[in-house]
């Protein structure tokens, strides 16, 4: 699925992405700094009726939220990690294989930890307030 989204219709896009990819528990979000990874995850969490503040896990590495629709959600950011071993030590692997929904920013830091089957979400810059998003399911 490929869509281009404007900041103003991000909620609508989040709904479409959810319906397309909800069969997968692990979602890997690719895109450079400022591409909007945290922003689209915030929109997804808003759609999933998460009540807690959804903020960047760059510092905390793993945030956990509760959603009445999706259950426990792990929001991870591997930006500060060096490799897979460190991701394992930080508890990333435990989350990925917990059966909970996992939204992972900077998954390229630990590609070997991704399960066989996952949703790949790529964000690209078009212009200010506009991004293209491609969603692909890997089996």
């Amino acid at each position: 699925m490929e869509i281009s989204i404007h900041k103003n219709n991000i909620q609508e896009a989040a709904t479409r992405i959810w319906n397309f990819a909800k069969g997968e528990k692990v979602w890997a979000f690719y895109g450079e700094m400022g591409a909007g990874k945290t922003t689209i995850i915030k929109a997804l969490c808003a759609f999933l009726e998460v009540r807690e503040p959804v903020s960047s896990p760059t510092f905390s590495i793993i945030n956990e939220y509760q959603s009445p629709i999706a259950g426990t959600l792990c929001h991870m950011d591997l930006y500060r990690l060096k490799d897979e071993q460190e991701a394992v030590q930080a508890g990333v692997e435990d989350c990925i294989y917990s059966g909970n929904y996992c939204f992972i920013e900077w998954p390229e830091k630990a590609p070997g930890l991704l399960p066989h089957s996952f949703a790949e979400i790529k964000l690209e810059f078009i212009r200010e307030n506009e991004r293209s998003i491609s969603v692909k399911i890997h089996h």
Partner: protein
Amino acid sequence: MISILAIESSCDDTCAAVCSDAKILSNVIANQEVHAKYGGVVPELASRAHMRNIVPVVDEALKRAQLSLNDMDAIAFTQAPGLLGSLLVGAQFAKSLSLVLNMPLIAVHHMQAHVLANLIGEKKPSFPFLCLTVSGGHTQIVKANSPLDLEILGETLDDAAGEAFDKSAKLLGLPYPGGPLIDKYAKEGDPLKFTFARPLPEGINFSFSGLKTSVMYFLRDAQKNDPEFLQMNMQDLCASIQYTIIEILIKKLIRASELTGIKEICIAGGVSANSGLRKAIEKTGKEKNWNIYIPDFQYCTDNAAMIAITAYYKFREGQFASLKDSPSARALW
């Protein structure tokens, strides 16, 4: 007299402190310089280093306080939030001591402790006061009604202020930690030279993610036309970025003060070391007739003295933890 040994290991520093009542007798910090070369705190290195540091740090804290473990009335530790592996080291150490010495255990929330760091020392705010806590992982405005009755009025919806400094520094090609370098270069730059996005969400909440994105696009375009742009404008860029972050913080602090009518204003957290922020708060304080409180620098960054002072107030209220209380990476307040 109540004496407490406090341990803080939520992130990259291993800290221990001893207090007698509300007086801090020692405050020891073992910094893990190893992280700088990786561009950030590395969780595994952090927890391993905590294990290596914790015994000598606790020993040193007791030695400087001229007390022994048996003189203590309670053992306190940081329960949340932080890196789980790091928190566990401090928590297990504190629990073991509490069990062996048969002393009460006190679990402390790191963010509450940052606010109460303002109660260390001679010049204390009177209640109720407002505290702007700014660090690498947090940005909050808290209303303190009493030592243990704190209320979060606003917090960041995305990136923390410290993260905005560090990520902007990375975009500028500066080494980690970038915040202090931005502060240094900003002193020689023009804060109004460049304008960046200034997201101001409703109410007292903060947002810094748009600022980071705006810096990124600005640099990308500017470097397309002039590959030397970064080097030629480093001071002005740092000054303008710092000015923008501080302006966002101050605007929200003013709003919080207007909404609550409180003029006792404190700052806390590692970013309160930023000289631009200190100046801006003092200037605003003069204009608005605020009483400004900034803890000593050693009590602003992560430290165990703030855990000790918080534990002292919890001790007085009989708020003890059990051995079953485990640390949490992200506990709600």
